[in-house]
Structure formats: structure tokens, C-alpha cells
């Protein structure tokens, strides 16, 4: 677990939290070199992730401070994105960040193309992909700046929360942890 003060507070709480202990165990198991944070190689030791076309995007979304590695706080925060108690806004935010590669708050034409290319590999021609990308941006872009903002994204994408399966059963304790971490950082 982290050595920051937020990490110490996390340790106190984890004595009571079954879910956090479980995730902590998972984190330690994934951390093959024992460095205290997960690198890309640590993730790529999971066979199911190796076959996932968007694994780099996922790791990138987890890595909020951009140092290329994922510490425990980032891990918990990332995993709770699909929590059973997450709201519509959280899920839309996550979906947006899948495409926003440079994290500037807008999905540009190039970014959308990049992610779509990762998903289809070499099975479709670049021209066809570009067509699909242009079409998507055209239909979503309201203010005409050639890229999709978060607001425009939300009007186009409509993720239904109640039908979301496959969520982790993280309880209110995780939300408390994340709030604590936020207040500590402010």
C-alpha cells in the first residue's frame, strides 16, 4: 500500500473492510516485483488482459497522475468505476475517458480513430474506419468545433445504469475511502 499519509489512513480503515482487504490482496498478487505499484508488465501477466484490445486504454484511465504506474489508490479508484453504487455520471465519465487519449476534455478525430483502430485491428481498412469516425463526430458535434466535448458525448451516449451487470460488489466503505483521499488532497 502507498506510503503517503493517505495511504496510512487507508491502512486503518482496511482493518474493517472486507472488500478492501480483498482488493489489497489482489493488488499484492498482481504486483509481481513487489514495487508497491503496478506497471504495464504486471497487468500483462493476466492472460485475459493480454487478449483485450483496449488494455492500454484501461491502464491509462487508471493512471490519473500519469506516471505510468498504478498505485493502490489509483487501483481502488479505477476499480470502483463500475461499482454497484456508481451513478450515471460516473459511468459516462469513464466511457468518455476511454476515447480521450490526451485527457484534454475533448475527443478529437485522431483520438477516436486511434481507439477504433485498436478495437478492430487489421480487419477493416483505414479508409472505412475514417469514414465511421467522421460520421460519428458529425452526428455528435453540436458546436461545430470538430471534436466531441463531454457534454456532447452525454447527449449522444445513453448508458442505462440498471442493466449494467458485471460490476464489482464494492460497498460504501470504498466510497468513504475515496472521499477521504480527496479531502486529504484538497
Amino acid at each position, binding site marked *: 500500500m502507498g506510503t503517503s499519509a493517505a495511504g496510512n489512513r487507508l491502512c486503518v480503515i482496511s482493518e*474493517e*473492510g*472486507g*472488500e478492501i*482487504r*480483498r482488493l489489497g490482496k*489482489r493488488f499484492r*498478487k498482481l504486483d509481481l516485483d513487489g514495487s508497491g505499484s503496478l506497471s504495464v508488465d504486471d*497487468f*500483462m*501477466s*493476466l*492472460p*485475459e*488482459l*493480454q*487478449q*483485450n*484490445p*483496449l*488494455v492500454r*486504454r*484501461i491502464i491509462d*484511465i487508471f493512471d490519473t497522475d500519469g506516471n505510468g504506474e498504478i498505485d493502490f489508490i489509483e487501483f481502488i479508484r*479505477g*476499480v470502483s*468505476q*463500475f461499482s454497484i453504487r456508481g451513478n450515471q455520471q460516473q*459511468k459516462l465519465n*469513464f*466511457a468518455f475517458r*476511454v*476515447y480521450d487519449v490526451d485527457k484534454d476534455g475533448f475527443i478529437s478525430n485522431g483520438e477516436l480513430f486511434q*481507439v*477504433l483502430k485498436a*478495437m*478492430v*485491428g*487489421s*480487419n*477493416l*481498412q483505414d479508409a*472505412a474506419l475514417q*469514414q*465511421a*469516425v467522421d460520421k*460519428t463526430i458529425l452526428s*455528435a458535434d453540436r458546436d461545430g468545433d470538430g471534436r466531441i466535448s463531454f457534454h456532447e*458525448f452525454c447527449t*449522444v*451516449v*445513453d*448508458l*442505462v445504469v440498471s*442493466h449494467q*451487470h*458485471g*460490476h*464489482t*460488489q464494492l460497498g460504501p466503505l470504498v466510497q468513504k475511502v475515496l472521499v477521504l483521499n480527496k479531502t486529504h488532497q484538497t
Partner: protein
Amino acid sequence: MENLWYVAGTIFQLWMFVVVFFIMLPAMFGLSLGVTEVYIQVLVKILEWATLRIQRGQQEQPSAPIPLHTGIIERVGGSMEEEMWQLRCSRPEAAGAFCLSDGVYFCKKGLESIVEDQVTQRFSSEELASWNLLTRTNQNFYYISLRLTIIWGLGVFVRYCVLLPFRIALASTGISWLVIGTCVVGFLPESSAKNWLSELVHLTCYRICARGLSATIHYHNKENRPQKGGICVANHTTPIDVVILANDGCYAMVGQTHGGLLGILQKSMVRSCPHVWFERSEMKDRNTVTRRLRHHVAAKTKLPILIFPEGTCVNNTSVMMFKKGSFEIGGTIYPVAIKYDRRFGDAFWNSSKYNMVSYLLRMMTSWAIVVNVWYLPPMTIQDGEDAAQFANRVKSVIAHQGGLLDLAWDGGLKRCKVKDSLKEEQQKMYSNIIVGQNHIRTTKTCSETREDQ
């Protein structure tokens, strides 16, 4: 000094007496004195009491965390198409085109794998629902009561000071008699008497070894037992699988020649009955291996071959991919499902964590080994089926019988990476989804990629 020799001599005589009359003779005839059964029943009662005690203790101390032994993810089992359909909220105009919510599907799958994946958990021991009073499985359990601790302490004493020496002595007796017995039988000329004697020696010594592990084996459907000239395939959890299966029949083993003690064992075993041992260099040449095995099977009078198609030890919660090499030999396949009862001892050999000696010591200091063996009806390859499909068919039958999860993942992933072709498969599947009625042109013609939704 003489007294010491005298005492040692008496002990040795006593030991031999016990072994011959109480263990070897019953083993030769396949009988049992019932001691192990009584022991198991007593153990079950104690463990049930312990479980109740722990549950009561957990209710009284709500601060102690309750271990989550089931998965912490609730997955829905749908195909890529179904899940993307749900993500898109079933909007018909979006069918067959790229939709912004598609990326979420891959991320969700990725997150599920990060929190709990189906593959790596098979390569470590399964967690128990409740503590079985062994120190090594005490992961999440706190001090509950004095009585429980006393019972646990007694358990440690019994297991390490009483059972362990007994088991070690028994196992070494069994193995040494196997070596001597097969050597002696090897000197006889080829005849049916030799075969019968060889079978007797093998069975007796394996049964002695099984007693040395306090193994209680329940065989089901004995009428489907593998016949001569067939191939027996089973799921693999531990090297002890061989002992378990050989307690009820004679098999021709297949494997690499080793050096040292194991090598001596192999050399003497092959004198009395035709096992198939390979040099390390030969193992790499698949054709040589297949040819030798085919020879063996074709002579219908030879013992059935025992093969573990997974190729590696898996933790007995699932069956991983069967390598198709064993299914290309021809002949009848006799599937066998083996399931260990985890309450009495964890039989899984985690070869990256323990070497053979420490693994055997752990086995001998567990409570016991209780195992169910199901013999399944013989199967043969059908017309129009290739070896890989046949292998999958056999695998699902075994998984179904043993109550194990049927996984398509390769057990070899314990040590090596996933092939790139799997990732390309995912990409291909997705491309097929977003290609629909004339929305996007592809590199192939539209008629080839049309799919119904």
C-alpha cells in the same frame, strides 16, 4: 550399546509385523481394515464442530472480517454481441455501425479480469469456506475460543508427531518394496504368470503408498474401468493422481526418464511391465512419441496407457485445455474424473512454490486425502471430428462429472504468454459486429461478412 541394537531390532520386527499383517496382506487382496474410515468419520465430526464454533465466534465479534471465498464479481455470461447490444440500449438505428459505447464493453471486460480473472486463480490453491484446523490454511481467521485452539494444538501434535513418522515409514516401505518386487519379477520369463505377478506387486505397493498418505478413495462406476489396449485420460492436480488411479488397476505410465531415485524406480518398473519412458530429447519429437504410443495401443494385450492431457497441474477447481496430441493416437479413450475433498488437505502441487520434497511433506502432514474417482464410459473419435474437437468433448464430459469448471484456457499459460492470435480473434469478432447492412465496407465482400442480428 547392545541394548540399543536390541531395542532397534525389536522395533524393526514389530514394524514389519504391523506392515505385513495389517497393511500388506489386506492390500494384496484389496481389502481394508476400516481404520482409515473411522479416522475420517471422527475428523468430519471434529471439523463440523469447529465450523459451527467459528461461525458462532464470528457473529459475536462483528469486527472480524468475514472472508469472501466466492468471487467478488458478479458476471453475466453473454457473448460480445449480446453485451454490446445491451450497452447500446437496443437502439435499432445503431445496429451494425460503430457506437461510442462499444469501447466500454472492452473496458468492462478488462476491469473484470483485473479484479478477478479466470486463469491465474487456477494456478494457486483454492480458498476454503471454513477453516479446517490446519495452520497453513489459516488466512482470514482470528482467535475464536480456547477450545478451538486446544483442538488445533492437539491436531498439530497428532499430525506431526504421530502420523508423520508413521506415514513416512510406510511410504518408504512401499516404494522400496516396489523397486525390489519389480526387479525380482523382471527376472522371470515372459508369461501370463509374470504379468499377473507384476500386477500384484504394483497394486500392493501402490496401496501401501496410498495408506502412507491416509488416502481414502471412492471409485464410482467401476464397470467403465479402462481396458487393455485403451488410453486413460484424467484431469491433473498432483503427481499423486498416479497413485490414486493405480490403486484400482494397472496402467502403463508415460513420462520423461528422470535421474536419481525416481530414475531407479522407473528402470525397475519397466522390467516387469511395459511402461513408456522417453528421453528428454525424444519428448520434443512429437512423431516419435506418437509412434511409440500407437505401437503400444495397437498390441491389444498391453496395459492401458495413462495420460494427463492438460500437461500441467491445475488446482482442481477447473479443467483446462486438453492437448490434442493424446487424442491423435487412436484407440478408445477412457475418461476419468478425479476430485479431491479440500477439507482434509490440499492436494494441489504448486510447482512454482514448492518442490517435490516439501510438497510430499505437506501432503503427509495434512489430515488425510479424500478423493472421488469417476470412471466414465469409453469414447472414440467420431467421423468429421478432428483431434481438437474430440479433446474438447472429452474435457467437457470430465468437467461435468467432476463438478469442475470447463475452461478453454491453456494450462501452459502458467509459464508462457498468450498467443497474439487470441487478441486478433477479439478484434475480428468486434469487426464483424460493426460491419452490418451496408454501413461500412470491408476488405472482404459484403456477402461474406453478413451476419444476422
